[in-house]
């Protein structure tokens, strides 16, 4: 039995498939002349990182197996500093204009092939070592997860096991091909977890060395609710979990009674509950789960997994698919939020020491006006039903929102010249950087709404990298500093007469939702299948009481006291939702409130 972080709830019993870390696909992409230097630098850094890993392995081997055994790693290091390798790869980048990953791939493939004709034992030995070096370096030369992918046929639906999976890779699978995720690395808030939740598949992250202990084809019980994985379970376990799955499905069915009810508190306060979506195909989920609209459409997924930028008409069509389908419900689309852990292969991005604080999001868009304007124009075209809101991410101060609005106005002017009518579109700023909180009154005066991105706001406020498992316990959504920031934002918005929405992962926890509602947040946006339960809980409370409870919580000075206080105040409300354990665990476990594989359920209800 393996215990990891419960990252997406639900249960599944299925065969597993291992994602082989060493399998890469590199794209034969030519680079622009002006990015030659950065590609060479990228290559050199990749080699340096690989060498560090090899040196660590060597030291470890000396301890475990002795000095002689470790000598092979000295050879690997020598290969990686051999001028003939370095110079050849650099020449492939400089003269043939291949990207770093592909240049290295070309060189190594040729090298590996050159042993094809030698004797079998010799050949195997050489090629094994070279392939090892190949994959080790290439891991650092593929931009994020862009390039290393199992492109194997999936014959039956499986639970994926492996060291890591990138968001792009996950997106390549068809709905229903993956039943769950069990990964060695990652945490509940890493992008893959979020994606797993939105795909409604159970996931357990941070399992250590699970992938080394399973073989493809092994039967797994994946318990995403409690963060448990059992390899080749016995009959006892299987029966236990079969029952669990049944109970779970009944809970889901019960929640469906909520779908057509209004999200109104007992004393009549209406709280908008919107859905987060990543692909336009998900638009149909929005209404089937009873959402009041879309609060966050992550437009960057249009840009992922491809080597060219999406055209304006392509984008307009994708956005229109959502705005038209959901009309008259409001749809909030976030402009391109790339960078950080979300790299684009169509834009040349250098590796940065600190990508989360680097060239990303609105910063990238304001520098690459060509990309930004194409997107804004597509959005304006897709807003023709009057139900579109555009939101600018990662705003750090007044200047960025002003520049964004200027560019937006330029786009409107240019579209008018094309004879296109400009619909009414509301513009909003995402508040997720502490500096923006401090000047939020100024920002609020310049926009039609504010949206709080809690994932980044918490990470930047507490200076905690949410994907670093060593400190993930310090990632405290209910930290008093975070709550006070949120209060400041809400007050500024209301003073300016505009609504404020929260769209981070935080709101998929009922207790957090109640706390934030009490702080005055007007709208929430969450994974669509969380909406019904959220509705249930909102319908069970008094708004005035919630205001009073949050005001009290705001006076407390540390996270533990806040959590204790909230749990005490809301114990009755959250009973039966199975969330009583969430606050005691540092990582958010979404508990058994999930609606996994709900599409099957809907079908079953329909028949």
């Amino acid at each position, binding site marked *: 039995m393996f215990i990891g972080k419960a990252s997406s709830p639900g249960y599944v019993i299925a065969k597993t498939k291992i994602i082989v870390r060493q399998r890469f696909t590199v794209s034969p992409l030519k680079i622009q002349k002006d990015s030659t230097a950065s590609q060479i630098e990228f290559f050199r850094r990749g080699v340096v990182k690989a060498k560090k890993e090899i040196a660590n392995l060597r030291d470890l081997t000396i301890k475990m197996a002795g000095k002689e055994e470790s000598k092979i790693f*000295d*050879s*690997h290091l*020598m290969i990686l500093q*051999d001028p*003939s390798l370095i110079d050849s790869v650099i020449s492939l980048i400089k003269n043939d204009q291949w990207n770093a990953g592909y240049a290295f791939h070309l060189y190594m493939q040729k090298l590996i092939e050159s042993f094809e004709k*030698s004797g079998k*034992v010799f050949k195997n030995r050489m090629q094994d070592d070279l392939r090892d070096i190949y994959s080790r370096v290439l891991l650092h030369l593929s931009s994020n997860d862009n390039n290393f992918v199992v492109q194997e046929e999936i014959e039956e639906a499986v639970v994926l096991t492996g060291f890591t999976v990138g968001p792009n890779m996950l997106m390549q699978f068809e709905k229903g091909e993956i039943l769950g995720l069990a990964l060695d690395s990652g945490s509940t808030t890493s992008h893959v977890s979020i994606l797993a939740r939105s795909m409604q598949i159970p996931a357990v992250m941070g399992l250590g060395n699970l992938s080394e202990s399973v073989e493809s084809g092994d039967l797994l019980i994946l318990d995403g609710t409690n963060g448990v994985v059992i390899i080749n379970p016995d009959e006892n376990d299987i029966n236990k979990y079969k029952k669990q799955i049944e109970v779970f499905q009944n809970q889901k069915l019960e929640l469906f009674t909520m779908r057509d009810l209004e999200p109104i508190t007992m004393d009549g306060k209406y709280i908008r509950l919107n859905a987060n979506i990543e692909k336009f195909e998900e638009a149909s989920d929005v209404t089937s789960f009873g959402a009041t609209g879309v609060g966050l459409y992550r437009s960057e997924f249009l840009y992922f997994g491809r080597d060219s930028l999406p055209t304006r008409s392509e984008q307009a069509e994708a956005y229109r698919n959502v705005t038209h389908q959901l009309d008259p419900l409001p749809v909030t689309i976030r402009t391109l939020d790339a960078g950080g852990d979300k790299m684009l292969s169509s834009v040349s991005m250098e590796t940065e020491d600190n990508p989360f604080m680097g060239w990303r999001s609105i910063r990238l868009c304001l520098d690459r006006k060509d990309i930004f304007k194409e997107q804004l124009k597509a959005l304006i075209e897709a807003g023709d039903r009057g139900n579109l809101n555009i939101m600018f991410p990662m705003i750090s101060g007044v200047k960025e929102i002003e520049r964004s609005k200027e560019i937006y106005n330029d786009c409107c002017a240019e579209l008018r010249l094309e004879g296109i009518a400009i619909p009414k579109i509301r513009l909003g700023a995402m508040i997720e950087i502490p500096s923006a909180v401090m000047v939020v009154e100024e920002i609020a005066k310049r926009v039609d709404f504010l949206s709080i991105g809690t994932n980044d706001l918490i990470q930047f406020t507490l200076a905690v990298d949410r994907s670093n498992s060593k400190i993930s316990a310090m990632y405290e959504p209910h930290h008093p500093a975070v709550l006070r920031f949120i209060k400041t934002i809400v007050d500024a918005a209301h003073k300016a007469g505009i609504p404020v929405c929260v769209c981070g992962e935080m709101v998929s926890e009922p207790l957090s939702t109640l706390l934030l509602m009490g702080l005055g947040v007007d709208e929430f946006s969450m994974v669509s299948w969380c909406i019904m339960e959220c509705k249930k809980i909102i319908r069970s409370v008094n708004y005035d009481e919630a205001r009073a409870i949050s005001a009290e919580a705001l006076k407390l000075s540390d996270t533990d006291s806040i959590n204790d206080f909230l749990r005490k105040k809301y114990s009755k409300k959250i009973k039966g939702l199975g969330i009583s354990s969430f606050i005691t665990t540092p990582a958010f476990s979404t508990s058994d409130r999930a609606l996994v594989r709900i599409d099957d359920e809907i079908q079953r209800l329909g028949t």
Partner: protein
Amino acid sequence: MIKCKLKVENTLGIHVRPAGYIANIASAAQSSVELIYSEQRVNAKSILNLMMLVVEPGAEVEFLINGSDEQEVADELTTLFKNKFNEDAA
């Protein structure tokens, strides 16, 4: 300048690890160190050059060593080959 002929006596030939040993000695030398095998002549300071020669077990190779420490280098290489690259432990 020293020329020395050495026989590859381990069971696997000059694969990655032995090539590393040779390149290591050659790189540390002041002298130039070249290796001649089946009509190819390469700089022995590059591990990749050595690997590309595909020197299989039982083969005989020739080193050309030229420089101030040529004798030491020749001795070191001779010992290395004699010990079968420390691989086939007796």
